[in-house]
């Protein structure tokens, strides 16, 4: 009986595993920013000003992978583009984002972000993701302040799909945006 159970379970695992392998092994993951993957919905801040958000620089020490799904490597897609898209979503907190290429200098604060970590891991049924972004804030008076933001996100492993790992990163990025919004609220208040 035990043998039959073992064989059945191994078959189930292998069947699932084969399906995973067929889902695009070793292709870079499509990293699409998802504003909906958030534990808490954004709430407009008290002091919202106009921001200029520069494209995120990819300064990760490991630009190749985002982790592993069982034994399949999770190959990183365009993490900088993904994070850049995410930062545009600061508008959901009430901030106005200056359009790319605008040079009339209406923005009160310029954000120069660098992504330094983006990775996932698994514990039991749970998937976790961590994102770390270093942010330089430049004000019109030329003053620059720097701060590093770190946030994690999680989701239950529903299908064993690679895309679910990207979802955990979206949760992490959206949690990170909330921390950035808190600081920008203060900065905008100072420059009002």
């Amino acid at each position, binding site marked *: 009986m035990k043998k039959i159970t073992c064989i059945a379970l*191994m078959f189930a695992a292998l069947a*699932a595993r084969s399906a995973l392998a067929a889902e695009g092994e070793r292709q870079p993951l499509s990293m699409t920013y998802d504003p909906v993957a958030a534990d808490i919905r954004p709430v407009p801040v008290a002091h919202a000003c106009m921001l200029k958000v520069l494209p995120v620089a990819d300064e990760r020490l490991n630009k190749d992978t985002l982790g592993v799904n069982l034994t399949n490597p999770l190959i990183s897609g365009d993490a900088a583009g993904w994070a850049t898209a995410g930062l545009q979503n600061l508008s959901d907190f009430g901030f106005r984002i200056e359009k790319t290429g605008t040079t009339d200098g209406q923005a009160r604060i310029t954000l120069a972000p660098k992504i330094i970590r983006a*990775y996932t891991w698994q514990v039991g049924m749970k998937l976790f993701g961590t994102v770390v972004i270093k942010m330089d804030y430049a004000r019109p008076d030329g003053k620059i302040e720097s701060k590093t933001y770190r946030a994690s996100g999680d989701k239950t492993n529903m299908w*064993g799909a690679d895309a679910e790992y990207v979802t955990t990163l979206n949760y992490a990025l959206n949690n990170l945006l909330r921390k950035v919004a808190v600081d920008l609220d203060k900065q905008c208040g100072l420059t009002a």
Partner: protein
Amino acid sequence: MLKGIIIMMALAIGLAGCAAPQYIPLSQENAKKIQTVNVRSLVVQDEVLAKADPSTVSAALGGGLIPALIDASVTNARQARLQTAMDAMYESLEDYDFRTIYWSELTRQLHEQYPFKVINVVTTARSMPAKDVLQQVQNLKDGEADLFMSTDYYLSTDLRSLNIITACSLWTKGAQEPVYKNSLKYQSAALGSGGEQSAKAWAADGGKPFFDKLKEGIDETLAMLSIDVKNNVTATAKTDKMDVKFNFGENASAKQKAVNGTLVDKRGERVIIRGASGSLYSLLP
């Protein structure tokens, strides 16, 4: 959800009883066939983690959707608490690179002390599926072997001990299973009183306590790697049975306090023992 549950249940419950052996010692006969070794060292992690002990309600109850959801919720709460405590460490250690530290030492020591002549060391963050391993070893030449290493490093769930765990397997041409396989487990001395206090202690002085133990762990791992495949190690190993204290973390039962094993080597204050399953442990008695 169903697929996720099938995968996790198969891994957590079913395969435990029918898994391949964790330890395959290298026989003299197979050792004689090996002249050169190519090494592939995998490090998936980008930084040190504290991984929560997964909840095992589902395994205890024999599966089911509700127990699985309970497991997910409990595991999530445990991990969230660890992440908060770990922030104290991460704040001071944002951009170190374990891979650089580890791989330079690995490459040097493999060339200097590994019992077989090491020709090539490939370092990567990309895991390799089992079918690709089998395919790769088909292309080996006579006398050639591939050593696959996969290294994880994490803090115990009370954040007091650094663990470095390396799974390794040695393959010869056309083999369907490795001629050698084992897990090498390093655990540092415990630091601090646990939780956030320990996380801060690891990061003190620019992270010196953390980096010192990383270096110690790398040295111990590479020593175990060589010891485990050396000729006659089984025959010459001291047969002293001993219990060595081991930090199983904050969710350990009262009985989980030590690893029982056979003394293999003494290195300064530390000992290397072989546990009941064959794994090598480098511990501080």
